[in-house]
Every structure is written in structure tokens, then in C-alpha cells.
């Protein structure tokens, strides 16, 4: 059995070696040999994946725990560096390292000829290290290390092409917005520490603590503090997983290389919020208020982002909003304590969204950097493999029966209806007693509507990109080519995943492998919350409704976009008018709530307070100088006169001494 410490160690080694290569080769004209660097870059994630796979097959029931060493040890606070490998981290690790390796492979083709080839892979390896630490750690503080680490790598990779300041600004935005969330995470940890000392940051201790609370009927006592902690953790999750209100960074993050968008901003990093909720599931299960907030936020995010996805012209932006929307689904599921369903959706989403992004990357690659969908079209014949991959992934994301997305999304919608216990409290109006109005139907309906919109905007993407006729310039048409094999292989593998990943938990045909894996971790939390709808409903009803929604959306997309004349692309691919208002709604909120007040404060400090202080200081100085000048003017030019004057002073002193008899 290999040590758990090895799994993050491999990418870390890779990062160090590749970083060293990048720095050493930076002086030379040609750059390092791409074959060598590429091999190293794929080797380390692949080794790590192999390690995870090996561990997965031999995992004992309760998981593997391993404490490496002590990390921080100060009075009142002690945290170890330790790893926990259980059902949840197993699944996360498998797809993180697996997809990570695939995307590293894909990147060899995508980044071919880039000056920062080695640097790019150093970052990718660093990212994988952080992500592995995030999901493998056995305590919150170490998770936080990974949490900020992935944020840092995201920053580095968004701003990878740093000659363009726009990319840098997008990167800065991503990091700062994430920082806001991270502070929530940090303060959440502090709240937890007040409840149970630093040991409670360990996940095992935490869940023991929670079960102790439940068994001892102390729930009412701890819930207020835990609720605050829960909300703070949730703020952290909204930052990392791009939920309302901290979602503005994700669309901008598309400035990075496309494989990065696939790996970090679709498949892995952004789902760490969902992971954290599942990890802390036992705690969240106690906090109905927080759960309701999560549902509402997830619902609003899913719907808002789906609509925003309709308005985008940039192929990557569509996928970005789609990601936000799908993350909204996952949060909704978490909000009704369906943590296994949310992780399942994370899992399937990772496949189909990564496939979509890589496909988009291949398209962009084929079109020499063109990202505006209005200038594409008819690529089905020119790049058939890419098109097939994307169409499979498309079917998966809209929830076409049998594809991966169908199983997971269906499960989430079902759980939403069954478990959502939100209600409007009963009230009295005109003497009538109105009973509690349950809201599970509303939540379910919004989820379903979002599924329809998802099918519409994804259908639009596929139609605009692959069908119709090519709308770009003539000379660019001749250069269109299929991607090299090194890029196609990962795409095809991911497309397989997009089709078949759902069969790990196909409720309708009785496969529950996924649920069983997760049960030891999140089972207790899910059992704590009783379903709102106790009547038994046939799951087939939900499946049919979901299928109808998908088909309806695809039909609408076909009706609108297949025949419509596409407006000629003018300049920027950004949406305009009302579409822009909707898209940049949260950007403007951030601007008025965050950026402008801080700038005004900074202005006050700089221009008012500091100048006033400086003036005060210089006034004091000036007074001293003036006084000094005044005294200096007593100084007569002739030395002798001065001595004469001092003799006079002596006389005066003498007289005083004599008059007082020396007793003064």
C-alpha cells in the first residue's frame, strides 16, 4: 500500500522540476524541448492517478487516515498535516487526477509553440497538487491550503498570457473575488474553533462532535454559532464555485488558455465548493436556515446564469455561464441535503463540461483563435471528430436519456422535489387561516425551467458552431483543420465519459454503485433530514418530465437558430443593451457595493487624511523652524559682542544670587 502523501507529492515534484526547467530555459532563445517537457508534464499527474487508482481498489471500508506531521502548534491552536482517503475523496481524486492527466495531454497539442510551454505545465502541476491537497486533507485548515492554492493557480493560469493587460485584470479579479470568499472560509474556521477548539477542524472530530450533539440533544445550543459558521463557509463556497453573489470572475476567467478553462474553471476547481458542502454535510444537515439559503442561492444562480448563457456570443463565455448554471444545480442539491446527488453531478459534469471545453478549444485552435460563434458555422464537415465529441457532450448536458447528465440531473430534480422542506410560514389574512405553503414545487419548477433554457443555449451553441454555413472570412476558411491526435484522444475519452459516466448510479435500472461509495461519508447527514414529501412517487415521472424539458429546449433552439439569419458580427463579442445589463448585473453590483466604496475610502485616506496629517506635521516643523530663526536672530555677527552680552547675563545672574543670598 502506498503512502497517501505520495499522491500530492507527484504533481508537486512535477511542478518543481518543470518550474526549474522553465526558469533555466528562460534565457535561451529556443526554449526547452517540448517533447521532453510534455512527457514530464503528463507523467506526474498520471503517476498520481495510478496511485489513486491503486488505493481505490484496496480501500478499506472506513477509509485510510494518515497523519504526516505537525503543522501549526501554538497555544490554543494545533493542526496536523494529515490525509483522509474515503469514499468522497476517492471519487474526487479519481476524476481530478484522471481528467487532469487527460487535459495535460491535450495541452501538449494546444500549447504547442508557446513561449511559456514549461511554465504552463509547472502551473498545471501546481494546480493538481493544490487540488489533491484540497480533497485529500483531513482537516479544514489543510483544505484551506489547497483552497487558496487552487485559487492562486487559477490566477496564474488566467493571467498566463500576461502581455495583454486584460488577461491580468481578469486574473486579478478572479483572485480578489475568491479572496473575499476565502475570508469567509477563514472566519468560518475561527467560529468552529470557538465551538470546539482547534481539534474540531479535523473532519472526523467534527462529525463525532455533531453526532454527540445530536445524541445529547444539544442541537438548539450549538445551532446559532454553527449557523454563522455555516453561512461563512457557504460564502467561501460561493467564491470558489462562482455562485451569487461572487460569480463575476468566472466568465472573465475564460481569458486563460482553453485547457485551463476545462480543467480549472469547469471540471475541478469550481466544484470544490460543492465538495466542501458535502464534506461538512453532517454540520450543514443541522442548519435548516443555511440549507434554505443554499437552495435559494443555487436556484437563482442556475436560472440567472442559464439566461445569461443565452446572450453570449463568445463560445467560451457560453460554456462559462453554463458551468455557473450547472454549479447552481449542484448547490440546490446540497441545499436539500442530497450530497451524494450533488457529488454525482460534479462527477458527470466534469466529463461532459471538460469535453465541451476541450471541443471548444479544438474549434478555437482550428479557427486560429476565433472565439465569436457568429463567425463560425458548418464546422461539422471540417472537424468531424470534434463535432461528434461536442454533440455527445451536448446531449449529456441537456439530459438526453441515457447520457451522463440525464442520470445526475434527473436525480437532483427528484431530490429537490422530495426533500426540499422550504415553506412560506402560515399566516392569517381576512380572518382566513392560511396554512404553511410548501415551496418544493416552485424549486422543482425553476430547476426544470433551467433545464429547458440549458437545452436552448447549448443547442444554439452547437447549431451556430457546427451547422449552417461558414460565416467567417474566406481566407480563414482554408486554414481550418482538425486538431492533432494528442488533442483528440483526451477529447474522445472524455466523450466516452460523458456518455457512460452516468451508469455508475442509474437509479432507474438499479445501479447504485456511486451512492454506496458515498454512503459512509454523507449517509448520516442525509438521514438526518427527513424528506418533505413522504408519499412514494414513481421516479419514472421525474425522468419523463426531465426528458420532456430537454427535448423541448432542443426543439426551441432548433426553431429559433437553425433557420434564423445570424446578425453579422460587429467588433466585440460582448452582449449589448438589455442583454448586457443582465449579464453584467453582478458586476455592477460589485462595482457599487465593493469597488467604489473602497476607492472612495482610499481616496479619503490618501487625499484628505494623509494630507491633513502631513500638513499638521509640517506645521509643527515650521513652528520649530520659525522659533529657531527667531532665536538665531539674537546671534550677532560679531563674536565679541556676543561675549559682551553674555557677560551682562552673568552680571544679572550674579545680582540675583547675591540678592537672594544664594538660596534660590
Amino acid at each position: 500500500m502506498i503512502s497517501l502523501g505520495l499522491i500530492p507529492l507527484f504533481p508537486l515534484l512535477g511542478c518543481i522540476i518543470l518550474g526549474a526547467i522553465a526558469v533555466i530555459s528562460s534565457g535561451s532563445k529556443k526554449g526547452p524541448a517540448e517533447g521532453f517537457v510534455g512527457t514530464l508534464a503528463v507523467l506526474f499527474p498520471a503517476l498520481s492517478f495510478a496511485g489513486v487508482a491503486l488505493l481505490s481498489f484496496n480501500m478499506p471500508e472506513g477509509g485510510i487516515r494518515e497523519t504526516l506531521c505537525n503543522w501549526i502548534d501554538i497555544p490554543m491552536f494545533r493542526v496536523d498535516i494529515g490525509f483522509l482517503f474515503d469514499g468522497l475523496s476517492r471519487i474526487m481524486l479519481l476524476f481530478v487526477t484522471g481528467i487532469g492527466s487527460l487535459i495535460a495531454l491535450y495541452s501538449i497539442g494546444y500549447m504547442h509553440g508557446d513561449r511559456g510551454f514549461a511554465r504552463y505545465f509547472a502551473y498545471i502541476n501546481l494546480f493538481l497538487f493544490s487540488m489533491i491537497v484540497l480533497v485529500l486533507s483531513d482537516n479544514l485548515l489543510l483544505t484551506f491550503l489547497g483552497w487558496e492554492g487552487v485559487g492562486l493557480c487559477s490566477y496564474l493560469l488566467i493571467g498566463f498570457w500576461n502581455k495583454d493587460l486584460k488577461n491580468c485584470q481578469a486574473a486579478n479579479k478572479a483572485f480578489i473575488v475568491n479572496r473575499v470568499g476565502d475570508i469567509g472560509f477563514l472566519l468560518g474556521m475561527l467560529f468552529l474553533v470557538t465551538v470546539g477548539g482547534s481539534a474540531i477542524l479535523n473532519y472526523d472530530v467534527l462529525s463525532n462532535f455533531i453526532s454527540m450533539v445530536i445524541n445529547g440533544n444539544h442541537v438548539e445550543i450549538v445551532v446559532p454559532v454553527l449557523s454563522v459558521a455555516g453561512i461563512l463557509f457557504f460564502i467561501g463556497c460561493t467564491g470558489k464555485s462562482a455562485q451569487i453573489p461572487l460569480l463575476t470572475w468566472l466568465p472573465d476567467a475564460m481569458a486563460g488558455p482553453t485547457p485551463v478553462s476545462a480543467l480549472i474553471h469547469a471540471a475541478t476547481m469550481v466544484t470544490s465548493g460543492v465538495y466542501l458542502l458535502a464534506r461538512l454535510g453532517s454540520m450543514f444537515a443541522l442548519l435548516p436556515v443555511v440549507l434554505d439559503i443554499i437552495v435559494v442561492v443555487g436556484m437563482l444562480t442556475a436560472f440567472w446564469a442559464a439566461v445569461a448563457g443565452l446572450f453570449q456570443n463568445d463560445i467560451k463565455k457560453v460554456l462559462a455561464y453554463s458551468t455557473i448554471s450547472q454549479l447552481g444545480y449542484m448547490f440546490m442539491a446540497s441545499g436539500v441535503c442530497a450530497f451524494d446527488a450533488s457529488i454525482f453531478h460534479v462527477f458527470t459534469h466534469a466529463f461532459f463540461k471538460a469535453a465541451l471545453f476541450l471541443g471548444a478549444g479544438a474549434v478555437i485552435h482550428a479557427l486560429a483563435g476565433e472565439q465569436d460563434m457568429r463567425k463560425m458555422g458548418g464546422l461539422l464537415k471540417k472537424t468531424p471528430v470534434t463535432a461528434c465529441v461536442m454533440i455527445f457532450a451536448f446531449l449529456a448536458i441537456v439530459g438526453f436519456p441515457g447520457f451522463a447528465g440525464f442520470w445526475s440531473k434527473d436525480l437532483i430534480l427528484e431530490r429537490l422535489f422530495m426533500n426540499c422542506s422550504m415553506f412560506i410560514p402560515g399566516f392569517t389574512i381576512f380572518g382566513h387561516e392560511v396554512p404553511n405553503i410548501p415551496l418544493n414545487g416552485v424549486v422543482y419548477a425553476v430547476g426544470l425551467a433551467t433545464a429547458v433554457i440549458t437545452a436552448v443555449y447549448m443547442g444554439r451553441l452547437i447549431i451556430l458552431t457546427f451547422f449552417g454555413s461558414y460565416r467567417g472570412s474566406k481566407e480563414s476558411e482554408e486554414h481550418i483543420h482538425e486538431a492533432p491526435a494528442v488533442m483528440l484522444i483526451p477529447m474522445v475519452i472524455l466523450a466516452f465519459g460523458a456518455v457512460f459516466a452516468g451508469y455508475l448510479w442509474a437509479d432507474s435500472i438499479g445501479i447504485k454503485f456511486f451512492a454506496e461509495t458515498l454512503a459512509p461519508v454523507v449517509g448520516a447527514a442525509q438521514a438526518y433530514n427527513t424528506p418533505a414529501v413522504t408519499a412514494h412517487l414513481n421516479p419514472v415521472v421525474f425522468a419523463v418530465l426531465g426528458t420532456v424539458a430537454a427535448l423541448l429546449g432542443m426543439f426551441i433552439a432548433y426553431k429559433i437558430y437553425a433557420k434564423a439569419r445570424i446578425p453579422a458580427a460587429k467588433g466585440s463579442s460582448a452582449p449589448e443593451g438589455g442583454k448586457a445589463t443582465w449579464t453584467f448585473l453582478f458586476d455592477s453590483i460589485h462595482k457599487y457595493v465593493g469597488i467604489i466604496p473602497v476607492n472612495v475610502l482610499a481616496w479619503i485616506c490618501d487625499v484628505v487624511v494623509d494630507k491633513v496629517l502631513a500638513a499638521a506635521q509640517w506645521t509643527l516643523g515650521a513652528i520649530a523652524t520659525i522659533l529657531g530663526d527667531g532665536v538665531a536672530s539674537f546671534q550677532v555677527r560679531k563674536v565679541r559682542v556676543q561675549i559682551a552680552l553674555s557677560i551682562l547675563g552673568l552680571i544679572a545672574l550674579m545680582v540675583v544670587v547675591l540678592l537672594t543670598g544664594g538660596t534660590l
Partner: protein
Amino acid sequence: MLLHLLVLAPFVAAILMVMTSKEDAKSSSRLAILMGIGFTAMSVALIAGGSVSTEAIEWFQIPGCKGPVYYYLTSHGLASWMVFLSSGLSLVALISARGITCRSYRNFAIGIFSLMGAMNGTFLAADAVLFFFFFEAMVIPAAVLIAGFGGKDRMKAAMTFAIYTLVGSAPMMVALWYVLTVADNSMLISFAVAVQGLPEGTQNVLLGCFMLAFLVKTPIFPFHGWQAITYAEAPAPLSAILTGAMSKAGVFGFIVWVLPIFPLSMNAVSGMMWLGLFTAVYGALMALRATDGKKLLAFSSMGHLGLAVAGVFSLSEAMLPAVLVLLVAHGISAGAQFYLMGIAERMTGTRELDQLGGLSSKNPVFSTLFGFAGVMALAVPGTAGFVGEFSVLLALWDMGPLPALVAGFTLILSAAYMLRFIQKVIFGKAAREYEEGRRTSPLEGFSIAVMLVLLLVFGFHPAFITNSLVEPEATENPAAAQVLNNAALNNGEAPMTEEEIHQLDSTLAAAGFKDDERASIIAQMKGDNSSEAVTKSENSVKETSDAE
């Protein structure tokens, strides 16, 4: 012996440098760097060796005071790390200065060595007058170096710096003198005992005088007027030392001299904490608007040190390790950033952020270091900065969620300005054409890389730092036990004379007793009517020593 060497040998080194050739910068720099390495090695040995003290040597007698002034050095975890910072940063400064001031390297090295000696003295002095002596002595070489090697406005900067800091500590001198006339001698304990005996109004005035000196040195809002211009105009290696080691003298003073001596009211404590937090926010906001790279770093330092001061006055149990880690982390990372900014200035000839940019494509090695250092300053987990800031947050949490929230806010702001800084300096395209100056030399790059790696090491294993604060149990020490027995025998007899008490005190100190323990033992020995005051002082001393 090590203590004497660390304090006095830098001055000897400065004299040695006087004898080297003025023109031949190469050979004199080699000598200087070798000596710098020696001092750094000694400071590491000091950390490894744990707490030690020298014999208390009578130095001189101030007329009107009861006891003499001692030349008495002692090291504890906090002090030895500060000494490490001052020696290590001086070493890097000596290395880095080869590129910046080759004109009269010798004079620069003389200044750096005397500054290092004064700083080491400040951190190691166990006698109040000795401490004050070195505290003031630090200013002079620094001001001379600024005036000699600074930027365009160097004379103004040097004057502002010297006058501001000297005026700031002038009240402290008066207070010191006043306490000396009351106290038995100039040691910490007798100070504490003496101050406890004074009426409350006097105590407050004295406290204010002490505070002012440290507030100016740190600097804390509103006494930061000297800082931006000084750090900006000083040569970059010196700025690094100023922020990395010298400004720590302020925080050090709060911990070692203010907290044990003065019984602080709750209002004063929370007031200072909020002042520190306000400084943290203020520094961050000012850094957001700064247009000069070095000024940005100056305000960033101010913010971090504000956070450290807030941490000190949280008076939490975790305060001392938290603040120590924060100080060490900030010392190294801010130092590295100043050096890097100095290199950027050397290469491009400007430090205006709008005029910089595009270095990442022109000079990748430099930019890698620069970006790395920036990331370190962001307090990303895994770096020492994170451990420091997180534990300070933890300490602040003792005072309630609001201070921690404000501290968290400063973390967000620090991310904002630091990213802007990185972007402006190394990303994008060069804002203007310029003749490229000397690039990073391998030795420079290596030394800065070592600093950054140190930050990582401390980030993953902060026990290197925090363990130095854990003292071995005093009673296990046989020598100490014997002293205690002797003292117990002596107890029934006539009250001890001042000399005897002093002897006892230094023996106890040598045996590894902490200040408050010594104070209480001596109070027992005296058996006079001041015992009540002593117990009071014990309580106030306790907070700090507990944290130790």
C-alpha cells in the same frame, strides 16, 4: 559570548571596513559579505541555543538614580529571531548593494554594519538604558546612509526620518529618566515594580511617553509621516532592512518593554488594538492608491505591522507565537520585495508604477522571483505569512469577531494592492523605452531565492519559529533550584541589601528564570511593604510571560 559578539562585533566589522580600500569595491564587498555570513551564522546559532544571558556588567551611574546602569544582554525567542532578521537582511543588503552602490561600497558597508550592531543591541538589551541607547543609535547610521546613498529627495528624507524618530523617542528618554530615579536599577523588573508604585496619573503619562516612541518607530497611524518618503528615498537594500528589521523594534518594544512594565487598563488595550487595526486598513488603502513602487511597499509594511500591533494588544494566549511568526514572515517577504523593487529600479531607472511593466518578457528570472515574492506577501497558505496572519486572526478572535472581521478585510485589500503591484511591474508591455541597467546577478538572485524558500519552509513547518518560544521548565534547572534554596535560607534573616538583590537577580536570570518569576522571588526576599505592588505587577507581567 555569542551575545557580546552579535552586539559588539558589527561595530568592529565597521571599523575593519574603514580600513579597506575605497576604490576596490570588489575586494571590500567580499570581506563585507564574508563577515555578514558570519553574523548570520551566529544569529542562527543564537536561535538554536535558546535563551541565554550575559553577566550584568556595571556600566555607569546616572546622577540622581539609585542603581547603576548595566551592560546586560539577554536573548529569548523573540529577540533571537529579530536578531536573525537584522543580520540576515543586512547580509542580503550587502550582497544586493554591490549592484547599486559600487561607487563607495565601503562606506555603505560601514553604515550597514553599524546599523546591524545597533539593531542587535536593541533586541538583546536587558537593561532599559542600554535598550534606549541602541534604540536611538539605530537612527544615526540609517539616516546617514539615506543621506549618502538615497534617491533624489534624499536629504529631505534623511532629515524627516532622523528628526521624526528622534523627536518621537525624546519623551521616552524623559520618562526613562524619571522611572530611573524611582526604580532600584534599570532592569525590567525593578522598572515594573517602580511603576506599580506610582500614582495612576503618573503611570499614564509614562505609558504615553513609552508608547509614542514605539508608535513612531513602527509606525502606527497617525505617526507614519516619515515612513513613505524614507522608504521610498532610501536605497533599496536599506529600505529592506528598515522595514524588515528596524521597524520591528517598535513592535518588539510593545511586547518586551511596554506590556511587562505598565499595568494596562482594558480601555488602553482595546484602544491600541483598534489603532493597530485601523493602521492595517489605512496602510492597505494607501497602498491601493500609491503610484510609487517603494511607497506601495512602505504602506503595505505599515499595514502588516499595524496588524501585528493589533495582535500584540489582543493579549491572547496565542499572541506571542502569532506575532513572532507574522513579524518574521513579514520581515523576510517585505525585505525580499524591497530588494526586488530596487533591482527593478536599477534596471529600468524608475520606480513609478505607470512607467514600469513588461519585465516578465524581458527578464523572466527576475519576474519569477518578483511574482514569487508577491505571492508570498499575499499570505497564501503554505507560506509563513499565512501562518502568521492566521494565528494573529486567531489571537484577535479573543477580542471578538469584529476585530477578526476587520483583519480579514485587510487581507482582501492586501490581495488587491499586491496583485496590482505585480501586474504593474512585471506584466503587460513596457510603458516606455529605456536603457536597461544591470540585471539580477546570480548571487543576488540566489540570496533572494533563499529568502523565499525560507518563507515556504516556515510556512509548512512554523515550529522552527514557535518552538523557540517554548522555554524548558525553570525548576528542572539544578542551579536555579540551588539559588532558590539559598534564597529560602536567607528569608528569615535581615532584609537583603540592594547589591545582594541585584546579585540574586542576575544569578536567577542566568539560571533561566523569566522576568516575572524573578520579580516575585526578589519581592519575597525583600519582604518589605512593596510586596503588594509586586503582586500587582506580576499580574500584568503574566500576560506576556505566559505567552512566552
